């Protein structure tokens, strides 16, 4: 029985895929039908996913290395004498992901129906297409977690990239009056290209791995011999292949999980519909990066004390604190969450960097739930405010209260306030999510975040696994703790600005509570955000047992992350402090004007944070524009110089030649030469025409001269030596 279901794992991603195909090809004109098909697709995936999960939960011994038999090849591609086998696998990590992904997706799917305004008049014309896209997205994530090899993992990884492009740019016809503000179509492009940078790096790593190992199947790559081999052969110098490839893989994760320095796409991805944000930031795409590092973790630890872990830890911790500072100065409700996501992903990455494998995965799971909750809650808020805006707009009389159409920003927290009364379900579930995010006891975030911090502290105390040095432990702990404070601060700020106080605009005043298909998922997710942490409490750490089992591959059984009361208290204290400060600034005296009270005291720092440390501008000036300029230069070179024949003919050719002789390198040598030959040819033809005078005696003269020359040639050739010697020159 167990085997039957495990053998069917590969079907999980196919359900949403089928839904995608059916909607795109046949039902795209029927909105309700499309909705249901998408629901059925993800629903089946959820059911099967949970069956697999619970069986793995119950019998995970079967799935651990010595006995497990669930890399199952599906098909192979010939590669010379060998072949490349592709298939699926089930292990505990897959199982856990299958618990989280389809379920969160299902919630998002249900929520989407309401969010996309099903049944109202201004229904989005591409409603069905939206469900098709998110189904494909779900397929991508599910396929990713059931893959038994890096190649299909990469394939699904990229399919998600595609979907994120399509979904972020879903409202591709939207334009804003402010030309500086990024439009959805540009955001989609940015997301795709930025992650593609990481993907290419990862692809390179994968190909190098394949070259070195000859296989991409996890079980082959992570076998003890292979890891040994990778750790003791060198890419160059004293850099082992394992380190090098691991770092390249990490490049992919940096892109996908929006870590510094490739984080820039994620906040702009907020241009997409909110369920998309939830999908991308919570359940799927961004966690794929963490999943990749977790999945290839054996590779990261193959070299004891290698630099790869230090890089991972540093990037993670730095990103965590870096992006939480930005979140402090954002006014867009979704952008705050976006930076918060980057920061939380930094937690996970940093945890992996100090070897806290289980804690990272745990945080990944809990975070998925509460972040999905928060995003959907914010979506509900925006939705409400938009409706309120419409409402007030229709009833407003007189010039005051009348805002220009298009300038009103429903995402701006400055336009909200006091929404808890108007939208109680949304508000309370949002607060639950916020508590989980900030790691307040006993919500889920507390347990997972605490486990990371405890592991970091323990590393500092005792030295870590896999040769991670103690100092790294301290570094990570310190940064993450500060980040915890900031997290609590900006989350509190968000809550107070949004829900507390009095409505600052007419829109907020008239915002209605969302429809049940939106609120029910919030409630369910809130329940999970509250209770899920219990799976990983220090006293009954089921989660550890399960995931730790798959970590046996790592050659060293991970030690139980001990509960450290001091650390727990410190982090809780820091979090509470954050809430308190936020309350003092934003909650104690609710804002009446849409200006952040911190703007004045922080001055230029606030501007810096508000502008995200100017990263977009730097990239624009440092990478994008030079690339475009280079492209323009190539184009000009090709189109103007090379393809068009140079008009001025010989004169220009002469100048060109002299120029070329002067500086022989940086000139159009390529095809200019070809056209040059053409010109010389033409010129020669002209010259020869001039000899054709039409006068027959001239012709005869030419003939006579030729005869003379030929005779002279012979005479010189034969007698010149004699003559020379006769003259005493020979």
């Amino acid at each position, binding site marked *: 029985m167990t085997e039957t279901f495990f053998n069917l794992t590969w079907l999980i991603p196919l359900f949403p895929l089928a839904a995608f195909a059916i909607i795109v090809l046949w039902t795209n004109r029927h909105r309700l039908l499309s909705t249901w098909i998408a629901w059925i697709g993800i629903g089946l995936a959820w059911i099967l996913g949970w069956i697999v999960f619970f069986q793995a939960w119950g019998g995970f011994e079967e799935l651990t290395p010595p006995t497990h038999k669930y890399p199952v090849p599906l098909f192979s*591609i010939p590669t010379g004498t060998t072949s490349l086998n592709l298939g699926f696998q089930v292990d505990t990590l897959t199982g856990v992901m299958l618990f989280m992904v389809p379920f969160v997706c299902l919630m998002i799917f249900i929520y989407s129906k309401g969010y996309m305004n099903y049944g109202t008049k201004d229904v989005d014309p591409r409603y069905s297409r939206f469900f098709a896209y998110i189904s494909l997205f779900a397929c991508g994530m599910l396929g990713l977690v059931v893959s038994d090899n890096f190649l299909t993992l990469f394939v699904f990884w990229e399919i998600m990239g595609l979907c994120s492009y399509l979904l972020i740019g879903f409202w*591709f016809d939207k334009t804003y009056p402010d030309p500086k503000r990024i439009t959805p179509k540009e955001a989609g492009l940015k997301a*795709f290209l930025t992650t593609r940078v990481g993907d290419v790096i990862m692809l390179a790593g994968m190909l190098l791995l394949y070259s070195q190992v*000859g296989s991409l199947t996890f079980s082959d790559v992570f076998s003890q011999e292979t890891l040994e081999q990778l750790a003791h052969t060198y890419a160059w110098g004293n850099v082992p292949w394992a380190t090098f490839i691991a770092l390249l893989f990490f490049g992919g994760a940096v892109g996908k999980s929006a870590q510094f320095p490739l984080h820039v796409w994620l906040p702009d991805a907020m241009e997409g519909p909110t369920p998309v944000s939830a999908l991308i930031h919570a359940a799927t795409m961004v966690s794929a990066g963490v999943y990749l590092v977790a999945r290839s973790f054996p590779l990261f630890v193959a070299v004891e004390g290698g630099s790869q872990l230090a890089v991972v830890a540093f990037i993670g911790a730095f990103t965590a604190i870096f992006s939480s500072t930005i979140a402090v100065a954002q006014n867009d409700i979704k952008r705050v969450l976006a930076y918060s996501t980057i920061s939380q992903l930094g937690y996970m990455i940093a945890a992996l960097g100090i070897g806290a494998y289980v804690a990272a995965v745990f945080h990944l799971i809990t975070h998925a739930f509460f972040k999905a909750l928060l995003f959907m809650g914010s979506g509900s808020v925006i939705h409400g405010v938009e409706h309120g805006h419409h409402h007030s707009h229709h009833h407003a009389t007189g010039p005051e209260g009348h805002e220009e159409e298009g300038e009103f920003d429903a995402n701006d927290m400055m336009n909200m306030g006091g929404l808890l009364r108007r939208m109680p379900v949304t508000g309370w579930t949002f607060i639950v999510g916020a508590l989980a995010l900030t790691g307040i006891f006993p919500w889920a975030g507390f347990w997972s975040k605490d486990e990371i911090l405890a592991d970091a502290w323990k590393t500092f105390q005792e030295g870590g696994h896999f040769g991670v040095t103690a100092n790294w432990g301290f570094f990570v702990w310190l940064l993450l703790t500060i980040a915890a404070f900031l997290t609590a601060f900006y989350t509190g700020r968000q809550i107070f600005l949004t829900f507390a106080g009095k409505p600052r605009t007419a829109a907020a005043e008239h915002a209605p509570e969302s429809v049940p298909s939106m609120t029910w998922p919030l409630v369910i997710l809130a329940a999970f955000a509250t209770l899920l942490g219990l799976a990983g409490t220090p006293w009954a750490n089921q989660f550890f047992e399960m995931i730790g089992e798959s970590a046996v591959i790592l050659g060293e059984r991970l030690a139980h992350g001990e509960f450290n009361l001091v650390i727990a208290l410190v982090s809780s204290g820091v979090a509470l402090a954050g809430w308190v400060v936020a309350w003092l600034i934003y909650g104690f005296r609710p804002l009446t004007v849409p200006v952040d009270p911190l703007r004045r005291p922080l001055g230029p720092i606030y501007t810096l944070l508000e502008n995200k440390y100017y990263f977009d501008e730097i990239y624009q000036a440092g990478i994008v524009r030079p690339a475009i300029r280079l492209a323009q230069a*190539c184009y000009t070179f090709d189109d103007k110089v090379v393809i068009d024949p140079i008009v001025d003919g010989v004169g220009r050719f002469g100048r060109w030649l002299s120029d070329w002789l002067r500086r022989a390198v940086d000139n159009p040598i390529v095809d200019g030469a070809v056209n040059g030959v053409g010109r010389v040819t033409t010129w020669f033809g002209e010259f020869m025409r001039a000899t054709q005078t039409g006068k027959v005696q001239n012709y005869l003269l030419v003939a006579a001269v030729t005869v003379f020359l030929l005779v002279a040639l012979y005479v010189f050739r034969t007698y010149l030596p004699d003559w020379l010697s006769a003259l005493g020159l020979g």
Partner: protein
Amino acid sequence: MEYLLTLITFTPLLGVLLVLLVPKDDERTIKNLGIGISFIPLVLATYLWFAYDKGQSGFQFEFIADWIPAINVNYHVGADGLSVPLMFLTALLTTLGLIYSSYTIKQRVKEFFLLFLLLEMGMLGVFMSLDLVLFYVFWEVGLVPMYLLIGIWGQPKDRPQYSAIKFFLYTLAGSVLMLLAILGLYFYHGTFDIVQLSQGLGSEGPLGLVFGGNSALAIAAFWAFFIAFAIKVPLWPFHTWLPDAHTAAPTAGSVILAGVLLKLGGFGMLRIALPIFPEQFKFYCWDVPIIPILALLSIVYGALVCMAQWDLKRLIAYSSVSHMGYYMLGVSAAAAGWGVSSYSDAAAMASNGAALQMFNHGIITGGLFFLVGVIYDRAHSRDLALMDAEGNPLRDKDNKVLPAFGGLGKMTPYYYGIFLVTAFASLGLPGLAGFWAEFFVFRGAFEIMPWFAAFGVLGIIFTAAYILWKIVQYLFLGDFNLERWKEVTHDAKLTDLMTFEKVTMWPLVLLMIGFGIYPTPLVDFFNSFAQKLFGG
């Protein structure tokens, strides 16, 4: 069975003769006849696809007969893993091209169909030839109809006459040098037979070293072949005929140009240049890596030019330069790994990747050209942006380029969907056909020449950039502006894909998706070829 290849190749010629008999005013009969005839090679090529035994290396359906016995030239044809898919591709694109053209070509229909079928014969002939003279004859036979197709049916503003002659002369210039090399081979080894030459040469082969070990001659002959093929491929810096020719040709002509004619060069590399001159090829890929450098330049330079390009068709033309650069990189890696037993699998993979790139580029870029034709037929314009008189894009007050279209994604969803699939296949999205080619090319290259491969993967980013930023964004995204559309197109009607356009595109889209998900059947063909070349 031994006549199968002959039948495939010469049925179009029969079509030419039949079309010739129909009076030129009876366009309906001409169209039906032309399309009908073109289905015969397609069906036969499909049969060939399935009848070919992939487990067996070596040539199948081989047929040999005297042609010019005085100089030992034979009518020697055969199919192997390399040629079977390409023959199928040729037959398919021809049929689709004819279907598409039967709706879009309005003048001189008879000539068009006649030339198109003649062209098909030339292309198919190249793929089946196993004799150098036969190869050369077919190689050049295709030139003339293509020249006429570009010149007659090109759009006047694209300077079709100039482009046509440029195309012709470029190819001819390359191939006459090849002719000298062919003759050279004959005088040293006494045969024009490709099979004998490719298997008999070498220090232990019955024919001895190529050119009897005279390295100067061998190198000269190698370059003669290589340049002839490189012009067709086209490899930077021999690419400059391509943008002009592709832009000027009528839609179906561009499809064939990009889909098949470029592959003739690629085919030549793998069928002739590499097997006959492996040492020389290897030398210039490994010891003195000129060829991989040119391949990288093609990839990056081609992609960069695309990014600055505003003419949609020209852009796609340049994308071919970039894409065929991947092909060349794969061939370089394969050549560099030739004869090294530890690289035999990597070389085979690189060669598989290169061959896949040929096939996939054929269906993908062929499809893209069809899709460009779709917008051009409606709008009579291909500029992505509103252009000023000097050919520079106009900008608004915020210095943003003013798109000429935009918003078609909303107005023509079907077109948008098909275009998206094709565009993503073109940028190598996993799950679509283009990916596998790039994957295997880089797989081989990363093992054999990692630095080149590392540089080459950068091209992937640029490719994504120009396809999504330039094409998709300017054409489909943004808000549809009816005023602007009317201004750009002079009041043309905007309709979504029509049935014939769907019929043309769907087979290609299905192939992109099918071979994207399950490439094994295709790779099996190429692998059987690569095994013969690199195995053992």
